[in-house]
């Protein structure tokens, strides 16, 4: 690990030579506690999810350091940062997918609409039912398109055909997939193209009316056209769903999100409205990252 730190700091200092301020990033790389720059306007919106002093360790390695941030309701919030900075881990902590891994320890808490996520009384299965999640690679289930969409209802024991059909249509329309698959709902979902599969996964995630929609780099395995369709879809979801997404693509973050958080080596650096982050960030470090001069 020390070697890794050295690499990062040397990379930063070489950047620093070209006149870009990276004091905070160097401090983070050294392991210092650096206060997050959170814009006031973030606190004005009503939050759907609150992350409070959250820390996470894989074994002895700490990958999330004391992150606190509110996620505004019915808005799109993007998490950006270099690879391995812990943004996916943070996202997977929200619906406690990290419980499936061994050797994970957390402190701090998150609150979904006021309910403590890491409370010992919280049933993790109920918790996951209140959220929808879309993964990097499309992961349709080996069953028909219809059954994929209504999966969450099926496992709840819903058998009423008309209810299922209604939910299926609404969700597929919501995921802008209905027109393409309405005539082949009973075909295997595995026969769809990659972009269609990812929209199917979004339809599956919204079918159970989630309180938060978690998108983990939803376009990273897709071609540009499919990516454009998913981005359009995220625009449409804004206002109806609270979306928390992880992305590597700065253009995508600037186009598709309302709020952006910059995370570096497990620490929140700056968090604010997307327009401010991209055009007028408080920190020089953020500017150099989002403009692609670093990272």
């Amino acid at each position, binding site marked *: 690990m020390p070697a890794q730190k050295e690499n990062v700091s040397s990379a930063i200092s070489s950047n620093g030579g070209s006149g870009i301020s990276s004091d905070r990033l160097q401090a983070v790389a050294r392991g210092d506690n650096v206060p997050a720059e959170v814009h006031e306007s973030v606190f004005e919106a009503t939050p759907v999810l609150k992350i409070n002093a959250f820390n996470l360790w894989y074994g002895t390695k700490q990958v999330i350091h004391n992150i606190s941030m509110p996620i505004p309701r019915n808005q799109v919030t993007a998490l950006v940062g270099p690879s391995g900075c812990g943004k996916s881990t943070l996202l997977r902590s929200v619906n406690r997918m990290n419980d499936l891994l061994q050797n994970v320890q957390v402190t701090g808490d998150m609150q979904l609409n006021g309910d403590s996520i890491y409370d010992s009384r919280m049933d993790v299965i109920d918790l996951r039912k209140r959220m929808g*999640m879309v993964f990097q690679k499309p992961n349709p289930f*080996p069953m028909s398109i219809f059954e994929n969409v209504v999966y969450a209802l*099926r*496992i709840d024991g819903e058998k009423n055909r008309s209810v299922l059909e209604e939910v299926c249509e609404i969700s597929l329309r919501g995921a802008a997939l209905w027109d393409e698959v309405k005539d082949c709902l009973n075909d295997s979902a595995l026969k769809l*193209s*990659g972009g269609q599969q990812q929209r199917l996964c979004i339809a599956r995630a919204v079918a159970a009316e989630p309180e938060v929609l978690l998108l983990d780099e939803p376009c990273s395995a897709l071609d540009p056209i499919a990516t454009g369709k998913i981005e359009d879809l995220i625009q449409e979801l804004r206002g109806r769903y609270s979306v928390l997404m992880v992305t590597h693509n700065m253009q995508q973050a600037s186009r598709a999100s309302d709020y952006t958080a910059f995370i570096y080596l497990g620490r929140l650096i700056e968090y604010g409205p997307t327009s401010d982050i991209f055009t007028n960030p408080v920190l020089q470090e953020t500017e150099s990252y989002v403009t692609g001069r670093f990272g």
Partner: protein
Amino acid sequence: MAHGEPWVWLMSGSLAVAVTMIVGLLLFITVRGSLHFWPRPLYEITLRDGETCLGEVTSREMGANHPQEDETFDDRRLVHIANFELTGTHYRWINESDIATTQQPRFATVVERLEGGRFHGFPVRVLKNGVAVSIGPETAWLKYKEIAPAIRKQFRDANYLDKHERGKLQQRLRSARLAMFNARLKHGTKENSFVDAAREKEKQISKEVATLSSHLDKNLAALRKASQAWSFEFETAEGHSVILPIEEIVQAWQPNNIGFFGTLRVYGARWWEFLSDDPREANSAGGVFPAICGTVSMTLFMALLVAPFGVLAALYLREYAADGPLTATVRIAINNLAGVPSIVYGAFGIGFFCYGVGGWIDELFFSASLLADNQPTYGTGGLLWASLTLALLTLPVVIIATEEALVAVPNSMREGSYACGASKWQTIYRIVLPRALPGIMTGLILAMARAAGEVAPLMLVGVKKVALDLPIDTSFPYIHPEREFMHLAYLVYDVGFQSPNSQAAKPMVFTITLLLVALIAALNITAIHIRSHLQRRYVHQHF
């Protein structure tokens, strides 16, 4: 070297050797097996000392090629001369130097009899109740052709009636007897009204059965009389006259007189007899239908038993059991189980299943029949115990294959399911198992192939040399898992190595082997077809 060409050669060479050996073996079996039923010409061979014989030439041997130098042989040929009751042998070596003349007489006839092996001779006349109806080789043969099907049908009908009707009567008698023993078991051996009633009933039924039985005898006698009236007189090459009852002629043909299509017809008829009939003459002739039935039902039964067992065990091992020294030990033990000699499974099967579980079932549910006949029902070898033993034998294969299939299910699918709020069991049941199904099928295919070809444990747990009562038949309750059965692989052993008439049995071994290989191939192709269907449905991803 850097491109690895020598390795490519080595690899392709190894593959070529393997393919050559497999194809060669299959080809050898196919050719030898399929030629057995092809009617070959009959030669009338006259020797220099005046002896004559009529037979098929089965093989030739060159004296010079014989390895043992101190014994000198002339060139010689092996002739299937048949007519065992006259010649005392089925086959005979004839030295080429002893032969005076060889010819193919037009009316030379091969007769397959129910008993006594083949007969070779020339038709003389057809008799009805000892009176000649048609005389002369050609007219007699035509007359035989005309009447034979009807006579054979009468004969078969009579046999069927004898077997089934009499079987039913005996069944009635037996159930009455069992009812009496049951009453005795239930209400004590001391005289009481229940036992008396059952005994009365039994007496009454046995009286009824006796009347019905004599009726049946009368009907049978009438039927038999009609078919027994006909017989066929032949003359052998040496001039002996032999009279054969027509009802006992399974098939007859004149190989020198039928042309290509006639030969083809005889060939088809003999194959049909082989596939559809019961065995005769200590399994060295006739059909193998009971063995086909036994092999198929045993294999399918085994698959039904091993699939749930193996899949559940693998699921627990892979999905629920925590990784640790214990799990590793269990896994190694399972792998080692695959290397235990199969006869050990047979010994375990007879000790545990037949005598242990079977004896216990007999005591609990069949105590009356144990008392009545002094015969076990489940407490001896049978289809159920053989299937269970082989299920145990193939369990490691299924467990290992299922584990592999479970590991191959992409983690992203499980995560997707968990993210939807599914529990572990829901994820396994709805996502993991369907996706792993093709891999599980692969394990099952391997298990079935192994079970269908296994012999050693079966000899201990239920396979019999002759068992004409099929494990699945038309009498209630239709499936009889307690019955002993015949098996093709065992038949190969029995016919090949236990037969008194080894020359006649040898080609039969190839034919049975061919059939067994074809049967396993058919089972596998069906399973592979199902698997590819599942694969299309659950695995293939199109981008």
